């Protein structure tokens, strides 16, 4: 593309980002500061994730971008188009075809494999921020592994709701060492981070932080002995593909209050349907 360097950022900036990523991979879960650049998108649109993606993307990569599990939302479409224009790489909606996946709010249902990279967009990277506004103090708490306090938050949940009600951005400990916010993915996705064969990279643009979970790294969700970590569950299966174990979104179908539950991961749902899986609504549609 004329007028732009490959992946928009200049080579020096990309090198700086790669150095931060290498450090992040070397210290799993540790937040590495980096010199976040102005991107042609506003904060909140995933500028941190975009910079990480720009830092690692190569000519041969195949890029997938998802937002809440879907490839076709405005946010996902504009990021995908941005990289298509500035790199010319192939893009895809298929999890299996992608070598590089940038995500906001979900981890694909289909297990990722070695060689794939998952890039998360992170709005607030610091898990201790809610109780400690001072950066110097949170750094010290990380350095000294003073994390017991995080359970105060879970305690409050149980005291108020009878269970741990936190359902997004659920705190984890990486590699038995660093406390980490996984970005606002549903806690349903937390177990997928544990021992994942793919490399996981996290980018926070506004707060200028990069962190990482290398392949096959232990990721543990915080909990209490008598209130163990649990993921969301649904009484229904996916209405379209019949999946019993994917994260479901509730979709309103008409103004008579008709609704159905469908996979939030659209690629997963479509792949299953084309493999012949059919949910209750899918059957009806096919019969008509």
């Amino acid at each position, binding site marked *: 593309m004329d007028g732009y360097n490959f992946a928009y950022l200049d080579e020096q900036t990309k090198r700086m980002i790669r150095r931060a990523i290498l450090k992040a991979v070397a210290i799993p879960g540790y937040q590495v500061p980096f010199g976040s650049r102005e991107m042609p998108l506003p904060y909140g649109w995933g500028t941190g994730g975009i910079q990480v993606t720009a830092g690692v993307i190569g000519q041969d990569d195949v890029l997938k971008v998802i937002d809440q599990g879907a490839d076709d939302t405005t946010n996902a479409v504009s990021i995908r188009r941005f990289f298509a224009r500035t790199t010319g790489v192939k893009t895809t909606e298929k999890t299996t075809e992608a070598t590089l996946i940038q995500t906001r709010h979900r981890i694909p249902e289909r297990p990722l494999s070695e060689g794939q990279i998952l890039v998360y967009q992170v709005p607030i990277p610091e898990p201790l921020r809610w109780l400690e506004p001072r950066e110097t103090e949170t750094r010290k708490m990380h350095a000294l592994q003073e994390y017991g306090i995080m359970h105060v938050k879970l305690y409050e949940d149980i005291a*108020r709701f009878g269970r741990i009600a936190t359902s997004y951005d659920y705190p984890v400990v990486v590699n038995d060492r660093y406390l980490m916010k996984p970005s606002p993915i549903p806690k349903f996705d937390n177990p997928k981070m544990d021992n994942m064969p793919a490399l996981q990279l996290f980018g926070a643009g506004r707060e200028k932080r990069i962190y990482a979970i290398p392949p096959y790294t232990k990721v543990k969700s915080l909990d209490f002995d008598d209130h163990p970590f649990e993921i969301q569950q649904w009484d229904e299966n996916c209405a379209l593909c019949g999946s019993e174990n994917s994260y479901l979104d509730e979709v309103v179908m008409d103004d008579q209050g008709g609704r159905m539950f469908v996979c939030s991961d659209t690629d997963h749902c479509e792949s299953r349907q084309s493999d012949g899986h059919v949910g209750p609504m899918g059957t009806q549609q096919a019969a008509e």
Partner: protein
Amino acid sequence: MNRPTPLLSVQDLGKSYGPHLGCTDVSFDLWPGEVLGIVGESGSGKTTLMNCLSAQIEPTCGKVIYDTRMDGARDIFDMSESERRLLMRTDWGLVKQNPRDGLRLGVSAGANVGERLMAVGARHYGDIRNVANDWLKKVEIDVGRIDNPPSTFSGGMQQRLQIARNLVTEPRLVFMDEPTGGLDVSVQARLLDLLRGLVNRLGLSVVIVTHDLAVARLLAHRLMVMKDGRVVEQGLTDQVLDDPQHAYTQLLVSSILQP
């Protein structure tokens, strides 16, 4: 032979703020179960001394030796920061004058009491809650308030909650800077009663800063009188208050303590 060791031993402690003197030449031993009162007029260096003893600030010179449970006598400023911070939230308590500085106002009373337990690894919600319940009872807070935030508590309740929050790990040494400072007289009396009971029952060692000699009389076994950053007199509380030797103490006693 098993000679008793002081819990806290302070040697030639001094703190300057640049050219300005905070406190100087302070030495004393604090024994297990002993309550030491630090009195003196405003600006005499009480808070400075207390902050050095409790490792809130680093002294300019001198030593603060603490008889740790694990390794015996250690200079607290030779410890690693993590050792020192662990000590501060397990074997020590720190009760601030303004409970708002010593409490987490955004979370419930139960979480305030349970925090230290969680910080040292408690991971059973039910157990933490039971201990929090017990402590609320011990400091005379209605257990029905366990899930309320301390911002809905009166000043006296907040101060009692702060005490519970500190004592939950069964510390051996508690620092208090004007713990009754901001309270009404009747509320003060109740808090002092409670404190005295707890100190006796738990065998706590306490360093308490106050400019109120009545508080000192009620709680402290021994008194240290400070003026212009120096200790001008120390001794048993009754001796110091009933038979002050130093002219400044005499002035202090006559001006404040008119029985």
